[in-house]
């Protein structure tokens, strides 16, 4: 369930896009420094967004630095450095979430399909313990959310209770960015709650067809009355995706309301872009353009 929280590039200023890229590169570099070069594979848009939000809430000083790309020595990269803990926290989050995802795959998939996860797990597990040592609160919140998630799915609960653990996880993570007495803490928590809910629902909507085919659990299946179906006819599929889109819209509307109340420094415009336009664009790409099913050549024309 990674990579859904990202800005709508077409609506960004050139300078904002450059900042976003530089922060992304910085996070990649931090991941390598803290958890070893292989850990860079855990990099995701979501964690980059978390780092940007953290920097915007704390208002930590940032400065640009040009250097070689850590992966491709021929490429020049701009890095956006910060003194504080923000990037390190985001890096820890990347590692922890990847660890839980791999463990999840082990439970859900057959032996051969999870072979890759099985081989990676000991390595990632070591890194996750390292992250846990540094940020016990983050690790605990993530572990609790995953446990609650497993339980909700085992009970075959409805859409709302299934989305609750992810929603609460992001709510906790975002609230923790502000000082306890900061007046915008409730708004941050609410923003995190609905963003987490949106991520969970987006992932469920994205996986709907695959889950139907494999007979796996998906909270939308019962909600939309699709039990027992393996394949969806085109019009059934469209109806299902429209219904998912409505649930996502309601959630995004609440996230935008909470984001309105945030007082953000540094990358405020990027955070707002994500909340107001980025989520909408991801919904459009996945539910209406079906970008994941199209070959790359066709995508370039879009």
């Amino acid at each position, binding site marked *: 369930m990674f990579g859904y929280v990202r800005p709508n590039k077409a609506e960004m200023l050139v300078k904002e896009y450059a900042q976003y890229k530089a922060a992304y590169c910085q996070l990649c570099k931090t991941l390598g420094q803290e958890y070893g070069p292989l850990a860079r594979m855990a990099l995701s848009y979501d964690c980059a967004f978390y780092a940007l939000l953290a920097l915007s809430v704390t208002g930590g000083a940032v400065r640009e630095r040009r250097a070689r790309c850590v992966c491709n020595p021929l490429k020049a990269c701009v890095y956006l450095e910060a003194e504080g803990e923000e990037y390190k926290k985001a890096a820890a989050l990347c590692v922890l979430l990847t660890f839980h995802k791999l463990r999840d795959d082990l439970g859900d998939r057959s032996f051969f399909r999870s072979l890759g996860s099985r081989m990676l797990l000991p390595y990632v597990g070591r890194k996750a313990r390292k992250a846990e040592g540094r940020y016990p609160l983050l690790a605990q919140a993530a572990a609790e959310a995953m446990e609650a998630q497993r339980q909700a799915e085992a009970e075959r609960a*409805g859409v709302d209770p299934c989305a609750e653990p992810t929603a609460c996880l992001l709510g906790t993570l975002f609230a923790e960015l502000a000082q306890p007495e900061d007046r915008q803490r409730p708004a941050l928590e*609410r923003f995190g709650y609905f963003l987490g809910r949106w991520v969970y629902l987006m992932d469920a909507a994205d996986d709907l067809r695959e889950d139907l085919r494999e007979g796996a659990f998906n909270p939308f299946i019962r909600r939309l009355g699709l039990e027992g179906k393996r394949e969806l006819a085109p019009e059934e599929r469209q109806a299902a995706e429209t219904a998912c889109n409505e649930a996502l819209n309601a959630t*995004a509307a*609440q996230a935008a*309301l909470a984001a309105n*109340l945030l007082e953000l420094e540094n990358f405020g415009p990027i955070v707002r872009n994500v*909340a107001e336009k980025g989520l*909408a664009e991801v919904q459009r790409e996945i539910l209406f353009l079906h970008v994941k099913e199209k070959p790359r050549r066709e995508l370039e024309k879009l």
Partner: protein
Amino acid sequence: MTDPYKVLGVQPSASDEEIKDAYRKLAKKYHPDQYAESPLKDLADEKMKEINEAYDTVTAQRRGGGGYYNGAQNPVGGNRNSGFSDVRSLIMSGRIADAEQILNGVPPERRNAEWYFLKGSVLYRRGWLEEAKDHFSRACQLDPGNGEYSAALNQAMNQRGGMYGGYNPNQSMNGSCNTCDMCSGLLLADCCCECMGGDLIRCC
């Protein structure tokens, strides 16, 4: 007090018109009605107050003048004929968990339209938007004429349409205009002409 111009997001050199514009935009953004069902209502009210104060200060500095915002209305209001006045007051004071506990204790045969509406309100505040919508629709089914219930359902349905966040598939992007829009536009223009006695497109 912070700089009122900064609160409104305008330069001190801005014209009266620009300030009014900025105020309107902000007032729309933080309008308490939007946050009526949200725990962030206090924060939104506070913001609204700041904006009002800043706007008042600026206009007073520039020779005074109107633009006051009238207080918000909370959809879960007091209701004289309510069978659940205790639940209503709990919701209004933000004690959602207590309200839910009382509601869950109501036996199924006593669950009327108001029960579904209040349970929906509790779920909505918690962020359980899907079940909230289901409860609001049930309340409207049981008591179709009730304005309070249909207002709550309408708000939930509007947010699902993508006007307030998310993606609205029926909205033409970037204000672009496709062939269908052009044809229907021409047809409408023709109808208007015919109403006034003229004719734009002879064949229809």
